């Protein structure tokens, strides 16, 4: 994708690991973050949660802007609070930030490189801009940029010192589809190369595409972590919902209702809606039953497997 690449961070698997242990943060009577324990490693993780859930507070604590009221928060074992050396390995792209519009992209990234006291600021700035594909626009003033270009410039500034850890707060806000696709590819490739990337977003269909793992925060508490598909499997109290179409729906329905793993079937003109209490048994049984009955299966689509469904279930819990 790019001519220049940032080398994958070398070292053991503990590099670029963010650890939160029982982290709590309050403001007077408002508990913004409540007893969160999580561990993030290399790769891309999505930070999800409703507005006001505490995502920005968590990101700010990771970035060392806030101290936890209780608990410990470390990156590679070093606390982030009052520890400027952590910025050697950390890059942060905040949700809102005023960038000096009169600077060109090149000047801004170069300034950030110099502030990081890099041995070759110009080279680092050039590489960072290449990574976000802003080389052609490097000599234009930031105030002439579109939102997506502005965002990419800020990502370049956050990457100029090749940090192991990159934190982004709502990075896709205001970007159009193409800009988002570029940004997603960038984050994905960085994650593949071993950087630890955490980004928060409300646009779940995209988090699905970029992030392998998610951390879901609801009202200050960590509601779930990990692969959202696995999380869905863990919700055993919620039957999995499938949309099924076949060559003979009613016959299939009769056969399916005899299965122990099926808890309910709705028959509609467009097909069946099957509720399966036991995902494993049902998904193994369905092909067998269809074949036994001589029914051709045209469509099997899980209706509540998406990150959006998982997320809404987590909110209700």
């Amino acid at each position: 994708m790019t001519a220049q690449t940032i080398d994958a961070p070398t070292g053991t698997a503990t590099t670029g690991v963010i650890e939160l242990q029982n982290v709590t943060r309050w403001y007077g009577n408002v508990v913004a973050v409540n007893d969160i324990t999580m561990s993030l490693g290399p790769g891309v993780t999505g930070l999800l949660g409703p507005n006001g859930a505490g995502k920005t507070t968590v990101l700010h604590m990771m970035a060392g802007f806030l101290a936890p009221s209780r608990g410990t928060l470390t990156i590679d074992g070093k606390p982030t609070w009052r520890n400027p050396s952590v910025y050697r390995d950390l890059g942060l792209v905040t949700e809102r930030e005023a960038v000096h519009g009169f600077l060109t992209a090149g000047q801004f990234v170069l300034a950030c490189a110099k502030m990081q006291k890099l041995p070759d600021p110009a080279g680092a700035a050039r590489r960072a801009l290449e990574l976000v594909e802003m080389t052609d626009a490097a000599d234009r003033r930031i105030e002439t940029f579109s939102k997506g270009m502005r965002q990419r410039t800020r990502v370049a500034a956050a990457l100029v010192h090749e940090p192991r850890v990159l934190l982004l707060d709502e990075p896709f806000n205001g970007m159009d589809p193409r800009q988002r696709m570029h940004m997603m590819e960038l984050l994905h490739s960085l994650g593949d190369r071993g950087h630890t990337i955490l980004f928060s977003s409300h646009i779940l269909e995209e988090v699905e595409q970029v992030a392998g793992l998610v951390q879901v925060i609801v009202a200050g508490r960590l509601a779930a972590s990990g692969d959202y598909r696995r999380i869905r499997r863990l919700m055993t109290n919620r039957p999995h919902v499938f949309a099924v179409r076949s060559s003979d729906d009613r016959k299939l329905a009769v056969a399916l209702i005899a299965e122990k793993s099926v808890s309910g079937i709705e028959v509609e003109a467009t097909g069946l809606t099957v509720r399966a209490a036991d995902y494993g048994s049902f998904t193994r049984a369905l092909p067998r039953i269809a074949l036994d009955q001589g029914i051709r299966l045209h469509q099997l689509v899980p209706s509540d497997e998406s990150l959006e469904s998982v997320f809404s279930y987590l909110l209700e819990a």
Partner: protein
Amino acid sequence: MTIIATEALTKTYGGGVTALADLTVAVDAGVIGLVGANGAGKSTFIKIMLGLVPPSSGTVRVFDLDPVTETDKVRARVGYMPENDCLPPDVSASEFVTHLGRMSGLPRTAARERASEALRHVGLYEERYRQIGGYSTGMKQRVKLAQALVHDPDLLLLDEPTNGLDPAGRDAMLALVHRIGTEFGISVVVCSHLLGEVERICDSLIAIEGGRLLRADRISSMTAVSDVLAVEVADGTDELAAALTARGLTVSREGRLLLVPLESDAAYDRILQAVSELDLNLHRLDQRRHRVAELFTTKETADV
């Protein structure tokens, strides 16, 4: 019924900036998605429809009226929901929407009543008597929508209505927009960057790129089924791929999915047999649909 019709619509600003170039499009009633890169010309298009800037050349007609010469008539039938913050913090929603109703020419009692109804339809209940400054993002978006509805327009122009909303808020707003477009009988133009949303609630789509028309079509024709089957199993994807190939099917892999061309209905049977024999968990079997996002992957631009 065509509600918006443009013919070679062009707008250039001083300094040689071309916002719209030779745009010819006819929009039917319903829910229409307006998609395009930032700076591609969407806001200019809206401004022209509202009669705020005149076109440089070409024609535009909204409800068969010319926004430049019959501005008042057009604006009386159009409601606009801006993308940016536009609400004063120190008035209540009820008062503000009533005030704007009067600005649209409604008599005082009618403005009050319609404001109250509009706020009810968008889902603001007792909050409406509190000052807007204390509202959440979701509530503010609803107020913006209510003020666009208060004068009973025939067309709503919504600029990024789900901006800043969390998933639950987005769902609620999309459902509301869909209701307005279908039950209320009002046509809606939704500017959005989120193609998933557009696919979900819109009937047709206009995609603008660099001021020019990229594509204008019904969503249904852009999301038609392709003749490729997607199969997903919980694990054992590799074994399944081998088994299907052994049965004479061409298999390609896309992440967790296996893609099989649907040459004949026999493909369904073979897949089912293979899955059953291997005792795998069948998670998905579905004909692939085209997605609106495909419009945007075919071209590369440097200056995005």
